[in-house]
Every structure is written in structure tokens, then in C-alpha cells.
């Protein structure tokens, strides 16, 4: 493990928050895309 | 154009037109601030320019949705859109009517509320001058916001969300003029910027607002 010195908490918090926001955005994007694709496919199959 | 202006003024001053509500709101806000901050003169005087400007801005915001909403409901907006008068001109006239009915009373009342908030007397002329130069752009930008949200059922909250960020430059320079006036510093630079913003807004925003109206009337 690398030594982060006295600012370890700051750096880890910044990376944690930043990556969590990015992950949330990616997850929301992929989930919405999957939902839209599923809805459209269902509709085209039934219709 | 003058007929349209006279009509809007008549509608606003009639019973139920909401005339004077803005000033009453401004009064209540100025009366509430000392309750929040404390009656201390030394605490009130430095924040007075900012409070007065924010109060004017919010009072102006209150009546924005009336600019087009009523005309949209009874269909006279469609008539305006097909009238020989360009829609840009109609928008400018309606913004002017809004300014006369809400901006002008605010400017006249502002020194009184300045006294309530312990604004230094040296700042009074600069407060009035900055409001005189700044509030027309508030009405104009408000007309743009109202034009965008005119067809929406719950447009009021959205309107403030869209319009308030647009008010930031005017607020910065307007409050800066008053603050510098209160401290006896030179006010030319922010005053010139304030006037420049208002002129640019008056020249360009009618086109954007008219475009938004045409889209909403389609």
C-alpha cells in the first residue's frame, strides 16, 4: 500500500465521492438504456 | 404599441390585477430581515444594499408569470402573434408594462425601505440609480422566462429556476454600485456594466422571447 501521508483521508474521500458519482451516472445510464430497450422490444413483439 | 401598453397597464391596475403586491412583498421582506439578523445598526447597514437588491429581484419575480399567462388563457396572445405588430415589439411592450407596474413602484419605495434597513444616506441616490438602470433588464429577462413557461400548467417554480440564474450579472453589478456608494467609493465601473447589460438585454432578449412564444403557440 502506498503512503498517502497526513492527507490520506482527504484523498480517499475525494476519490470515493468522485468515483461514486461517476459510478452512479454510469449505472443510471445503463439501467435506463436497458429499460428503454426492453420496453420497445416488448411493444414490438406484442404489437 | 401604445394601445397595447395602455391595455396592459389598465389590466394590471384594475382590481385583481396584482398592482402593488410587489411593493407589499418588498415591505414585508425588509421588515423580516431585521428579525432574522437582529436590530443592530452595525449589523444591518453592511448587508442593506444586498438585501434591498435581492428584495427587488424577488418582488419582480412574483408577478412574472402574469406577463403572458392571462393572455394565453383567453387567447389574446394568439391575436397578438398574428397582429401586424411584430411579436418582438409586443414582447418588449409587455415587459415595459411589467416594469412600469412593478419595477417603478419598487424604485420609488426602495429609499423608504433603505431607511428601515439603516442604509447610509450617501448610498440612497446610488440605490435608486442602480435600480433604475437594473430593473428593466429584470423585467425583460422575466418576460423571456415567462415566454418559455407560458404553456406549462405548473410553470411558476420552473420559471424562477430558469430566470434567477439569468439575474446574477445584474444583481452583482447593481448591489456593487449601491455598496460602493455606501462606502463612498467610485461607482462608475459597475454602473457602466449595469447599464450595458440592461441595454444589451433590451436589444436582444425580445427576439429570444418572441421565438419562445411562437414555439409555444404552435
Amino acid at each position, binding site marked *: 500500500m*502506498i503512503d*498517502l*501521508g*497526513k*492527507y*490520506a483521508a*482527504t*484523498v480517499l*474521500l*475525494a*476519490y470515493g*465521492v*468522485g*468515483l461514486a*458519482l*461517476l459510478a*452512479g*451516472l*454510469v449505472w*443510471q*445510464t*445503463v439501467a*435506463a*438504456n436497458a429499460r*428503454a*430497450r426492453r*420496453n*420497445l422490444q416488448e*411493444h*414490438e413483439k406484442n*404489437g | 404599441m401604445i394601445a397595447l401598453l395602455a391595455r396592459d397597464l389598465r389590466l394590471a391596475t384594475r382590481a385583481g390585477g396584482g398592482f402593488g403586491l410587489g411593493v407589499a412583498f418588498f415591505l414585508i421582506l425588509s421588515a423580516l430581515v431585521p428579525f432574522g439578523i437582529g436590530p443592530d445598526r452595525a449589523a444591518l447597514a453592511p448587508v442593506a444594499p444586498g438585501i434591498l437588491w435581492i428584495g427587488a429581484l424577488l418582488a419582480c419575480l412574483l408577478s412574472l408569470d402574469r406577463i403572458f399567462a392571462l393572455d394565453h388563457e383567453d387567447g389574446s396572445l394568439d391575436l397578438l402573434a398574428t397582429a401586424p405588430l411584430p411579436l418582438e415589439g409586443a414582447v418588449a411592450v409587455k415587459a415595459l408594462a411589467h416594469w412600469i407596474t412593478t419595477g417603478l413602484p419598487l424604485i420609488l419605495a426602495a429609499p423608504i425601505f433603505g431607511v428601515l434597513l439603516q442604509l447610509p444616506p450617501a448610498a440612497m441616490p446610488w440605490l435608486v440609480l442602480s435600480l433604475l438602470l437594473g430593473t428593466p433588464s429584470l423585467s425583460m429577462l422575466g418576460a*423571456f422566462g415567462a415566454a*418559455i*413557461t407560458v*404553456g*406549462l400548467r*405548473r*410553470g411558476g417554480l*420552473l420559471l424562477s*429556476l*430558469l430566470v*434567477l*440564474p*439569468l439575474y*446574477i*450579472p445584474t444583481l*452583482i*453589478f447593481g448591489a*456593487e454600485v449601491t455598496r460602493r456608494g455606501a462606502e463612498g467609493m467610485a461607482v462608475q*465601473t*459597475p454602473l457602466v*456594466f449595469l447599464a450595458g*447589460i440592461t441595454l444589451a438585454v433590451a436589444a436582444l*432578449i425580445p427576439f*429570444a422571447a418572441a*421565438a*419562445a412564444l411562437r*414555439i*409555444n403557440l*404552435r
Partner: protein
Amino acid sequence: MSIWKYANPAKFMRTTDRLLPWLVVSAAVCCTIGLVWGFLTPQDFRQGSTVKIVFLHVPAAMMAINIWVMMLVASLIWIIRRHHVSALAAKAAAPIGAVMTLIALTTGAIWGQPMWGTWWEWDPRLTSFLILFLFYVGYIALWSAIEDPDSAADLTGVLCLVGSVFALLSRYAVLFWNQGLHQGASLSVAPGERMSAVYRHPLYLSMLGFLLLFLALLLIRTRTEIRKRRLAALQAREMRA
């Protein structure tokens, strides 16, 4: 070969279908390597290990501004050429831009706490980003408030145009209003002010990674919007039938 043929949503779907896997993989690779490499850089002699935050902070801030510019261009293309995919791309980009602004603001606040001794300061750069975030929020709110898709595209396009002017105006007004703590450009080309190559190279890589990530997300979100629009059109047709 002209970009105008991508106005056809079917053509757009086919092309992006082939393009997306490459984009996703390269975005993931660049982001991962850039951030891990950045995380492993040595400590700065003044800022200690906090200098590592730059690899998230600067790319996010750069994308926050560039995404707004992209939305402006896409809105203009929609208004001038009635290019439907372009309007949907502008709509798809806005939430990404808002999140990027949020990342830049929060990582900046966390960084500012030990360096400046405060989470927040009304510094011109910080304030401008807050204002930019407000513009993103207003833009997204307007999209979700209007039912008719074409009117929504038109009105948000007009708002984007006016908002761009005022975002720029606010930037200079804020500069006049308060002098700041924030340093100037991080990637200045003037010699002597340049960052050491130790930090510069991973930073370039994570900037590239963020750009690729944005493009990948943008394409996916635009595809989502196209599918939603198609579903709505199909349902509307059946309602009439």
C-alpha cells in the same frame, strides 16, 4: 460522407451499435490507467498527497464546460437543420454535464478543506461552477416539464443559447465581484509554470479517459432517448388506430 445522414435515427443506431463496444473499452482502459497512474504519483512537496485529486478534479471540470459547449452546438444544429438526433443528444448530454460539474465541485471542496482551510470560498472559479450547475439544473428541469418533444427541443435550445451568453457574462461579472484563491490555468503552456511531467502525463490520460467516457455515455443515452421516442410514437399510432 456527411454528418447529416446521421439525422436518420436508424442509421445512427446502426453506426453507434458498431462504435460503442470500442468506445466503452477504450474509455474504461483510459480512465482506469489514468486514475490508477495518477493515484500512484509521488507526493508533491507542498500539497502532499492531495495533489492526486487533480486527476479527478481537472478532467471533470474540463468536461463540465465542454459538455455545455457541445449542448450549445447540438442545440444550434437542431434549431437550424431540424436534426432530431442532435436535439436528443443535447438532452442526453445535460445530466452527464451536471454530474461532471458536481464532481468538480465536491472534489474541489474536499481538496480545499486542507489546502485553504475551508470547504467553500466565494472564489470566482468556484462561483462560476456553481452558476454553471444551476444552468444545467434549469435546462434539465425544462426538458422534463414539457410534454411535446419538438416544443421541448425548441424551447430548451433557445434556453441553451440565452443561458450560454449569461453563463459567460456571469463568469466575468463574478471575476469583477471577487478576486480568488484558486490558481489560474492548471495546464499553462508558459515555461516555468508547467506541471512536472510526472503529473502531466497521467493527467492527460485521465482527461482523454473522461472525454471517451463522456462520448460513450452520450451515445448510450442518445440511444435510450431514440428508443423512448420510438416507443412513444408507436403507442401514439396505436391510440389513433
